[in-house]
């Protein structure tokens, strides 16, 4: 446990500025949305389902941002390569699995920070509108966090393939290209599922259902497992 404490401490200390920034952004978004709901000028907003729909959609945005951004590495991978730490790790008594486990733990800690803000927002939303967005927010949050973990694993694996300072440019281009390729793939899948003819209200109802919540939990768990395997393999891989 002492080992993980050390490794997670290192990861958190390195990325704390990034996560503070993401946390502040999420808080700002959540507070702004709540202000729209509770300010006197917004009294005209009806709380029936049709009228709340735009706010409902915007609320999902908080889940998307929290999920995607909460699991990104905050620049740790490339910093590790630049400083030589990525190579030094091989001289330390730490296995690839332990490194991957510590990285995953750090991601889960930062995700739980984002989750707290999202849950607080869901409670405040219910208090202001009487409608519950809890399941849909958490489900979307988990789906995006899972997708974010997959992106992070791909980026991390690509960056760690090039551990040399001289290969930095190649590494950054390749890592970012991999992430963009996955974003394009996600966009294609989303546009196939959510065609213009699809009724948004029905989609939102499905997103707010327990079935979708279960799908989200399973997807997140599978992504976390995939992340662990990919990152531990990238740590176990030796230089050519």
């Amino acid at each position, binding site marked *: 446990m*002492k080992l993980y404490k*050390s490794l997670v401490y290192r990861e958190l200390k390195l990325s704390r500025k990034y996560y503070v920034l993401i946390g502040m952004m999420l808080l700002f978004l959540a507070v702004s949305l709540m202000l729209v709901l509770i300010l006197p000028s917004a009294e005209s907003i009806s709380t029936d389902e049709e009228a709340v729909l735009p706010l409902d959609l915007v609320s999902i945005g908080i889940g998307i941002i929290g999920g995607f951004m909460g699991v990104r590495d905050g620049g740790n991978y490339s910093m590790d390569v630049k400083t030589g730490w990525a190579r030094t790790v091989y001289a330390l008594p730490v296995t690839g699995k332990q490194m991957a486990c510590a990285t995953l733990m750090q991601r889960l800690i930062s995700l739980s920070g984002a989750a707290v803000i999202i849950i607080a927002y869901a409670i405040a939303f219910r208090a202001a509108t009487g409608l519950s967005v809890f399941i849909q927010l958490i489900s979307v949050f988990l789906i995006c966090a899972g997708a974010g973990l997959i992106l992070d694993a791909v980026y991390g694996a690509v960056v760690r393939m090039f551990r040399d300072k001289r290969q930095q440019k190649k590494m950054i281009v390749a890592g970012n290209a991999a992430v963009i390729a996955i974003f394009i793939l996600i966009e294609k899948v989303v546009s196939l599922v959510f065609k213009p003819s699809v009724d948004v209200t029905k989609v939102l109802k499905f997103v707010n259902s327990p079935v979708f919540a279960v799908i989200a939990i399973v997807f997140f768990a599978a992504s976390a497992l995939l992340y662990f395997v990919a990152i531990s393999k990238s740590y176990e891989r030796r230089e050519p």
Partner: protein
Amino acid sequence: MTEYENAIEIKGVTKRYDDFTLDNISFDVPKGCIMGFIGQNGAGKTTTIRSLLHITDINSGEIRLLGLDHIKDETAIKKRIAVVFDELPFHDMFNARDMARIFEGMYPEWDNSIYTQYLERFQLPAKKKIGQFSKGMKMKLQIACALSHNAELLVMDEATTGLDPVVRDEILHIFQEYLQNGERSVLMSSHITSDLEKIADMVTFIDRGKILLSGCKDDILEKHGILKCDKEKIAEIDAADIVSIRTNNFGAEVMVHDCENASCKYRDCVIDPASLDDIMLYYVYRDKKEWS
């Protein structure tokens, strides 16, 4: 804990790159000894160190550290060794205290009191960010980290390169102190042979991926000599005695690898003692035989 005679055993190790091959190298570092690993830049020192630390996979051969297999027992070995690289691999935003928090979880024998003693001795501020350290301070911090977990084997890759003579001398002194109990060993790669001449018990010369010499430093220094003669005299010297010949306007300097034998055979010539620097230089030009 395993009993072992040699802290490092490298047998027939080959590592192939597109433009370089570490070619079937073998040498041992006995327990309690400082081994100087000498070679010019690109000779294969870093590749050897990366191979023994399993940073890179080898194509063939066997490496044992502290009596254990370098791959099978990797984690057990790495708890008992310390590595110092030529550049500090710690992030600039950390401070010395952060490094202690990171390493204390990794090494079962990490001792914070020893670490603090080294920080005080090196006059390193515990709370100052590493990014604000000078090169000498960074190297001292790396050494403080390496010496604070009771490592039995210290591996250093060009650790003193780029440091001023005062800092280098201070660091060499610390290493000598560290080895006093006879249970610890050091492999120190460097192309600054004066450092190794001061502290090494044994030396291994590597050039173009091949081990040229390996053994007790004093024996190697004793056996090699620089025979000074006229250019005309070179023809009379047995080729088997020569490592290589350096010519200049005034004559020739011939490196011989058996000083005693050469002093008997060539009584009319003066043979000066050779330094590690000389030995490295003459061996590098061994294929040319004659150079200036």
